[in-house]
């Protein structure tokens, strides 16, 4: 243990400010074709993700926030190559995901897992908990059934469930417990990256805190890297190291969590923060709210120029014609907006 600690400290001393990049996404696009008629003629495309670039550092949590339809989940799925990207590259631990053959992909898959939003829908109701958690082990490792049962019990203990319940079915568990089963399944193969797609959105407030605490504990214990997708700005602030704000398939702003919350630069980030209600009547009564007009436009016909220009309270003519380029205004704090002055 001591030897390990010194190694970690030495590594930390060598590179104090440069965490290792685990996932590097460059100019990623995912367009879904819109077809019409019996011949499935392509008449357009839904630009679910339209040119995003970001890095996820090993051992950190990148939060991805945005409204429904902004492309958050599609990014998560494309990262794991559950969707084929239309354009762009995803480099996972030095290897380009797009170049992998089916066999090569199968080798990488155990290292990247997913936790889903709906704990009622993502577990097979006809399988026992032990077979749900054991399935990845059967699929990717050659273990004897005894070794597997031991591993399943260990995993159940890790996520705070009683190992004696291994032979129960999902319907016998509450929502929070089911989400724990989903987490146990995701960590069963010791992955590097876990894409968490709104893992707490379907849970009650008091249970949300339990699940988030568990995820943080597991991150510390197993050195996990999370892509945490959520629309809950409060929870993202708590769990994330860096945050990317998405709107209509593009990243509007990306920064360290503190600089994003304390010094939001993009008008959309400010509006989003202002829309989130504060659980304090005194603050609510006095704070000024930015209420955006209208709805998020359809991703099949995004507006020209900046995609946010149709709802932006500060938009000028330039915003409606020219797409803002991504700029880094201070180290680690990037924004795509014409109105943010260069520093």
């Amino acid at each position: 243990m001591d030897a390990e600690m010194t190694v970690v400290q030495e590594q930390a001393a060598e590179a104090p400010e440069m965490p290792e990049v685990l996932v590097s996404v460059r100019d990623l696009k995912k367009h879904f074709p819109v077809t019409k008629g019996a011949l499935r003629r392509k008449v357009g495309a839904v630009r679910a993700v339209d040119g995003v670039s970001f890095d996820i550092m090993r051992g950190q949590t990148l939060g991805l926030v945005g409204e429904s339809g902004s492309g958050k989940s599609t990014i998560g799925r494309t990262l794991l190559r559950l969707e084929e990207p239309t354009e762009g590259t995803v480099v996972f631990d030095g290897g380009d995901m797009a170049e992998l053959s089916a066999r090569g992909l199968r080798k990488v898959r155990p290292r990247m897992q997913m936790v889903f939003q709906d704990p009622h829908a993502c577990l097979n109701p006809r399988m026992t908990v032990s077979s749900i958690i054991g399935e990845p082990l059967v699929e990717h490792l050659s273990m004897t059934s005894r070794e597997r049962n031991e591993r399943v019990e260990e995993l159940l203990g890790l996520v705070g469930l009683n190992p004696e319940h291994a032979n129960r079915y999902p319907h016998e568990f509450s929502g929070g417990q089911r989400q724990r089963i989903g987490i146990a399944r995701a960590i069963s193969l010791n992955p590097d990256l876990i894409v968490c797609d709104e893992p707490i959105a379907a849970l009650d407030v008091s249970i949300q805190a339990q699940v988030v605490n568990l995820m943080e504990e597991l991150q510390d214990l197993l050195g996990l890297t999370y892509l945490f997708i959520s629309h809950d700005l409060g929870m993202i602030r708590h769990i994330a190291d860096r945050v990317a704000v998405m709107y209509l398939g593009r990243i509007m702003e990306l920064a360290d969590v503190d600089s994003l919350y304390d010094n939001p630069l993009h008008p959309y980030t400010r509006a989003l923060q202002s829309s989130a209600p504060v659980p304090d009547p005194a603050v609510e009564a006095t704070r000024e709210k930015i209420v955006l007009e209208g709805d998020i436009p359809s991703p099949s016909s995004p507006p020209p120029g900046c995609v946010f220009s149709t709802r932006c309270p500060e938009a000028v003519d330039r915003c409606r014609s020219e797409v803002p380029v991504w700029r880094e205004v201070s180290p680690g704090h990037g924004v795509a907006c014409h109105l943010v002055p260069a520093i």
Partner: protein
Amino acid sequence: MTVDPTPVLRVTDLTTRFNTQDGTVHAVNGVSFDLADGEVLGVVGESGSGKSVTMMSLLRLIPTPPGEILAGQAIFEGDDLLSMDLGDLRKVRGGKVGFIFQDPMTSLNPVVTVGDQIVESLAVHQPGRRKAMRLRALELLQLVGIPSPEERLRCYPYELSGGMRQRVMIAIALACNPKVLVADEPTTALDVTIQAQILELVKGLREKLGMAVIWITHDLGVVAGLVDRVLVMYGGQIVEDAPVDEFYAQPRHPYSQGLLASLPSATSRGDKLVNIQGQPPDLRSAPASCSFAPRCPHAFDRCDRENPVLAAVSATRKVACWLDEVPVLVGAQSDETAKGQVGHGR
């Protein structure tokens, strides 16, 4: 806050059960509260705490069987909603009491235009000439801030976005100038920026029209900005009834303290979130003890023996907790002691 001696709605001892194959579910157990004229009342609680069933029971909207309203009174303008003739109750539903449901997609009829759905409500309660009702529908769509309302009248629900559909629901609920508007998690299915629009709209409408509002939610942030008074429900009972400022400054019931402390904003980054241990109660047994006792960090032997009743602890507040005979508890948001009191981690 409105101080009105005669409440517009007075509910006493409402008890609702569901007789299912797995046994009797005690969904609402002796709920009593008053709603003052023009007041906005927030009802918070987790899923299964009985928030929705309480409000549905008031208008007898729960399916019977399996549901059964065993006891209670709901006095609205001098009449008991729970015992009145069904024909009279129909005049109240959608007339003097408007209802907004959580999911605007499933509560609007998909094959009827928006305009016809609003007119339908008017035709039942305030029949008039079709043209006049059509004009009123147009006026309502303008009131709830729908752009180009003339065109929208002819739209079907699927042609509108979630926020627009919820505005239509509000327009239908407001069609007959209700005295009371019951909103059952109306913004839960919406994005935050759209939720902010709906909240501003409801605040504005309430000032303009002066109706009383019952707002059911599980979001303590929404409650803080909107309501005058908070009811906290747990296990089918009201455990705390307090003015909103006092509730956030100093929650009295251990469950309220736990709820407020478990919000991520109450914890500094890097610290573990405070959580309430355990699971919500199983409502299949009649509440003989305090239903929060198994999760309560302060529970003592009396909590397991007797179920506390909602009792006044000051002129404005009521709490259902035996602990209130013990000196005042600490506010959950204010300092570290509260965190220590409400179970930490595992």
